[in-house]
């Protein structure tokens, strides 16, 4: 059997429940689930929360958290003898530095908080004023805006299923027509027109179809999905249900970051409420906890992980709309994309389209780093950095560089501050909107360090499947580290970096390897003086 009745998909969770990769665990779990022992080992060692169960605290080493002193927190915890390790972005860049205590993200942790815990990791708490139970970051607009916005993060949670009823009234064809008219582009990073996917799935001959929610938010600089899940779970669930009914799917799989303990709970409660109101009839919901791997935000890696395997991306084509989860047609969307759907159904495609500038819709921008009020800002798609940062209370210090869309987008110089932050305009500048995780840097944090942070991130998160990325991410990080080391004889350390980067972009299977050189290549292009002049990388 190759669908959800195949017990294998429960493997990651079973490994988690058995306490992670301690000796004997993969063998025992393999027997319970009925998979080969070596496969259980392969899966368990792939996901970092399973692979290293001894670490109870994980300090974010993402760029924004490092800028906010994450290093000091990590060091303090190590010195206090706590079971701690550094970890890739925790989607808490706005409340940096973020720390993961078991599966709970603690916002705004200071070295002082660590000291006060007196060596007891369980006692670690954030004293920054945010409650760890229901913490939310700062969002814009600061009050409900029922008329003007697609996501309306401050809006009241609506459990009446108004959009669901509307979708039922107008029927699947008109729902899809509205999505098409809205011009909604995937908000996960690729910007692919949503209606093409919907039509693709709906037109398949195979009738077993799936809708999958990608809530594995992990792109450094990005935390909007976390905010949406906690504040507007109704929009997310309504969007999923509308999508499932429109494409003819009966099973909905939610892949939630395992670190999202609070959003998970909120989502489950909301699902219960919808179910109680009879709004989910005929639909199965399955919740899957990610176990710590950035690459599972890549849609086909996510599908592999949902099936209980190592999260290694598949080749495309075929695309998931044809061959997706368990080989069946699958509609997969990022949280923000799916949360735009109820608004479109209620107010129409033209309304949504009108919310943007050159490109359709309003958009959640995450902004962190050197700005006064890091947070999630819902603004017309296509605002400029200056406009965004103005809403965020202005720059802290002098703008030096910024990263427009997560680690994968590299860095742009301050002179690009007036460029519209949308898919097309940024791709013309050789970068991308990606997940719209904007990180702002002044000159107090050396850009070279920022580049190195991003390279370390990609090296840690490469799935390791294909050589260009597996070796290339390591090669680039090593080259830059040698270049930045004090030793004078390392002046030619960047010698083959541009050719290696070309190779990674051409040769890698998925977007991770293709984009991984960008932090370095963009910085070499825009800020050659940071690396010893333009000839350094020739």
């Amino acid at each position, binding site marked *: 059997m190759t669908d959800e009745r195949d017990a294998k998909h429960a493997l990651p969770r079973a490994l988690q429940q058995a306490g992670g990769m301690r000796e004997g665990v993969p063998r025992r779990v393999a027997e319970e689930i009925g998979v080969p022992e070596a496969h259980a080992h*392969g899966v368990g060692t792939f996901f970092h929360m399973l692979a290293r169960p001894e670490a109870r605290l994980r300090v974010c080493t993402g760029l924004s958290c490092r800028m906010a002193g994450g290093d000091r927190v990590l060091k303090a915890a190590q010195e206090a003898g706590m079971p701690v390790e550094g970890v890739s972005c925790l989607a808490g860049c706005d409340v940096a530095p973020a720390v993961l205590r078991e599966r709970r993200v603690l916002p705004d942790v200071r070295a002082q908080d660590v000291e006060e815990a007196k060596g007891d990791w369980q006692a670690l708490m954030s004293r920054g004023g945010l409650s760890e139970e229901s913490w939310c970051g700062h969002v814009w607009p600061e009050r409900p805006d029922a008329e003007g916005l697609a996501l309306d993060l401050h809006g009241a949670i609506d459990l009446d299923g108004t959009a669901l009823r509307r979708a039922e009234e107008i029927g699947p064809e008109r729902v899809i027509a509205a999505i098409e008219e809205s011009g909604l582009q995937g908000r996960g990073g690729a910007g692919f027109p949503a209606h093409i996917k919907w039509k693709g799935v709906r037109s398949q001959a195979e009738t077993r179809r799936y809708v999958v929610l990608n809530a594995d938010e992990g792109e450094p600089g990005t935390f909007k999905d976390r905010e949406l899940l906690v504040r507007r779970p109704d929009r997310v669930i309504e969007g999923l249900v509308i999508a499932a009914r429109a494409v003819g799917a009966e099973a909905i799989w939610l892949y939630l970051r395992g670190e999202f303990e609070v959003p998970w709970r909120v989502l489950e409660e909301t699902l219960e409420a919808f179910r109680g109101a009879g709004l989910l009839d005929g639909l199965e919901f399955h919740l899957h906890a990610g176990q710590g791997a950035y690459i599972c935000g890549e849609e086909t890696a996510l599908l592999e992980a949902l099936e209980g395997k190592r999260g290694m991306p598949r080749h495309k084509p075929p695309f998931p709309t044809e061959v997706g989860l368990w080989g069946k047609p699958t509609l997969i969307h990022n949280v923000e994309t799916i949360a735009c759907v109820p608004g479109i159904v209620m107010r129409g495609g033209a309304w949504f389209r009108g919310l943007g500038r050159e490109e359709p819709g309003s958009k959640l921008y995450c902004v962190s780093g050197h700005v006064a009020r890091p947070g999630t800002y819902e603004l017309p798609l296509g605002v400029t950095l200056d406009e965004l940062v103005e809403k965020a209370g202005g720059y802290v210090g002098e703008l030096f560089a910024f990263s427009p869309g997560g680690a994968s987008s590299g860095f742009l110089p301050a002179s690009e501050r007036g460029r519209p932050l949308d898919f097309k305009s940024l791709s013309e500048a050789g970068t991308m909107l990606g997940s719209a995780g904007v990180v702002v840097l002044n000159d107090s944090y050396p850009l070279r360090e920022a580049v190195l942070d991003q390279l370390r991130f990609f090296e840690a998160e490469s799935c*390791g*499947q294909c050589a*260009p990325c597996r070796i290339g991410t390591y090669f680039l990080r090593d080259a830059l580290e040698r270049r930045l080391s004090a030793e004078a004889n390392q002046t030619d350390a960047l010698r083959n970096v541009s050719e290696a980067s070309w190779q990674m972009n051409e*040769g890698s299977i998925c977007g991770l390897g293709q984009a991984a050189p960008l932090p370095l290549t963009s910085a070499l292009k825009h800020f050659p003086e940071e690396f010893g002049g333009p000839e350094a990388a020739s």
Partner: protein
Amino acid sequence: MSQQPRITLGGRALVFEPGETLLDVATRNGVEIPTLCHDPRLKPVGACRTCLVEIEGWQRLAPACATQAQAGMVVASENERIDRHRKSLLALYMTDHPQEEEPAKSGTPNQLLAMVTEFEAASDWGRLSQKRAGRPGDRNPYIHYDADSCILCARCTRYCDEIEGVSAIALAGRGSETTISTADELSLLDTTCEICGGCIDVCPTGAMAEKMPLVQEARPDLQLETVRTTCNYCGVGCQIDLNVDRAGEDGHGRIVKVTSPEPGTTTNDGNLCVKGRFAYEFVHHGDRLTTPLVRGKDGELHDASWEDALRIAADGLMGVRERHGADGLGFVSSSRCTGEENYLVQKVARAVFGTNNVHQCAAT
């Protein structure tokens, strides 16, 4: 005009069967495309990236091994972009691979190194320290995993899954620490592994290698001669290639290792079992019988001719029948016997001696 769909490859219009990959079509038509992770018996993974080709209208290069041919595709397997791709890919591989020119200890040619030479790729991009964990403590006597020269093509693990159905080994870890491992990093002896050695056979770099001392000691430049023969361990009749060092054993020749003929050429399709692949040392063993022996009145064994030996055995058996009846005899044949030989054994038992006491040791 034929209705069969075609692709254009390197300017030639080539027909294909539905389901064929670009690599299949290329190979059938003598167009060479380099591969490392490909094995025709295994589901393609497109992981090594050596076979990337350019398809008109596709923004990205595509793996020939994992891309199905579609009517009208215009494919290039040689051009500047592909050449640059191969060179830079191989150069990157070399930063993470032992650079020694000689073949790996297994005596198997290292296909990666050969490719670096063929495509004149750089091997001077520096050397990264290798982060893959091996299993140095694995006490199994036959299979060694040299993590340093592993390129993570996953042929061994896919072979173990898809051909052997054993799944003793798997990709483990992530990123540059990805390696090939067993559950809890156990010795292969403590896993489901059947020591078929197929993982050695499919490995393109010699990272999966034999521990057998003869192979280890064989000089790398040794010119081994392959002698095709039939494995005599059982009735399946696998074809095996004895890899012989002609100069060994004082010129009598020495079997250094046993390999399987190419997949697709013999009934065993590239596969062997532990006995056929590893249990060849008996051939040169000092205790091996080279002539029949008969126990004399003095209680010692003495050389004899086949005629004498068979006669004495027959007399002994007939004597038992006379003294104790036919059912005083029982016949057990060796698992090395073929079906035909087993037929003859029961024929001897039933027709010659008149008993149904006959068994074959592999029958249980």
